[in-house]
């Protein structure tokens, strides 16, 4: 990824005040994120959803009395 592309990524993320050395760091981050994503198992299925569980609060004994 060249410098202009890194700059475009930074702007798209709202990181408009990054200095040249920070943009070099962001370029390293892009590469690190790509590598890390590739390390995820390939067999993850949508059925293995991270569940959002909703619970009704237990009755408040003080209010009940």
């Amino acid at each position, binding site marked *: 990824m060249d410098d202009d592309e890194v700059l475009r*990524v930074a702007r798209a*993320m*709202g*990181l*408009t*005040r*990054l*200095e040249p*050395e*920070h943009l070099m*760091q*962001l370029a*390293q*981050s*892009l590469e*690190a*994120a790509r590598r*890390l*994503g590739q*390390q*995820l*198992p390939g067999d*993850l*299925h949508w059925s*293995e*959803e*991270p*569940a959002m569980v909703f619970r009704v609060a237990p009755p408040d004994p003080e209010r009940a009395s």
Partner: protein
Amino acid sequence: MTDLGFLGLADAGELIRARKLSPVELTSALLARIARLDPLVHAFVRVTPELALAAAREAEREIMAGNWRGPLHGVPFGLKDIIDCKGLPTTAHSKLLIDNVPNEDAFVAARLKAAGSVLLGKLATHEFAIGGPSFDLPWPPAVNPWGRNLFPGGSSSGSGVALAAGLLPVALGTDTGGSVRNPASLCGITGMKPTYGLVSRRGVLPLATSLDHVGPMTRGVRDNALLLDLIAGHDAADAASVRRAPERFSANIDAGVKGLKIGLVRHFYAEDMQADCEQSAAIEAAAEVLRGLGASVREMRLAPLDDYATCCRIILRAEAFAVHRRWLAERPADYGALARQRLLDGAVVSAADYIDAQRLRARLIRQTDLAFTGFDAALTVSGMDPACAIDDAEATARSYPRQARQPFNVTGQPALVVPAGFTGDGRPLSLQLIGQPFTEAKLYRIAFAYEQATGWLARHPPGV
């Protein structure tokens, strides 16, 4: 009397209760040690001698009047500087928050104050608990007292260093990817990452909320359990806080290990990674000690370390960026280089990867739970290596992935690190015990039996 610098919480509390030790005497002795030694080890970002002496005098008045509050009454403590204490800056060791003064205590700070404990000051951390040992921040990094040029681990580095150097008996740290247990390992002290949700994080700067824990740090195991007795508890203001009956984790600590079934997770340090040979030998020796005490120790297999590490890194990076994105947008130059790099890493984690990492997390939790069936606890390494040089940036960076702590941030299980000996050149070695959720008391029981059988606690760093 024992050197006051290395007097533990239980012993200090008992002497104070019996009026054989004055909280003012203890606090003054520790402040004198801090004045002498902290310029060498940099454990504190802020020492609060006037506040400490005032709190110690108040504790003394109460105790002399017959109003002893409990084992922490009059005992000094320190807080990692991402934990709020009303009226004192919480800096996160960063230029960004140098003037950040909270107007409330964190839940855990309030618990310690209510117990009559005496705050000595705020302790060094890696910047925002993520940065690493950095030399471009307003304060220098903490240095391991076991060697003047040794890395103490992090991010709760000041907490580990202050305990190892005998500057205080009680400290709190936080653990998102191992940050209580890493300094505990490298500084030769005891650190507990409790079950996720057991200790409230209200008033603690977040790093990655689904992985963040507050944990007790002490030199010995009994002290650690006493501290957890105090800080555990439900808090409606922490969304992850668990509502459960209060428990005394220290109650059966001396019940021994006879009949307990312990799984040895050898593949973490012998297949998935190759640990330093002295560190792996220390784990094998610990397994023998526990067998000798009557426990059954046999091999346990969990998922490969890489699976947990990938999962933890993706979640941690993404959640940390969510916390920091406004500061990164407005004041990127005010971060140290290491923290900025690690936080930018989270800027470019895709939403799909984050969701897949959460899917992987659910799978790993199921697999780990299944593997623990029939076991009371697991034994393995904390880190693969003893402490390296603090000014060797490559060595410290290399040390972070060479660890087995992240799995239990992913699963939320309790994990306890205790000293397990020393290398030939005098650097601390450690072991890690892991339990099923809410089995902290059992981990303390195993660790205490091991500690009593081995006596590693008696050794202190040279020159302190």
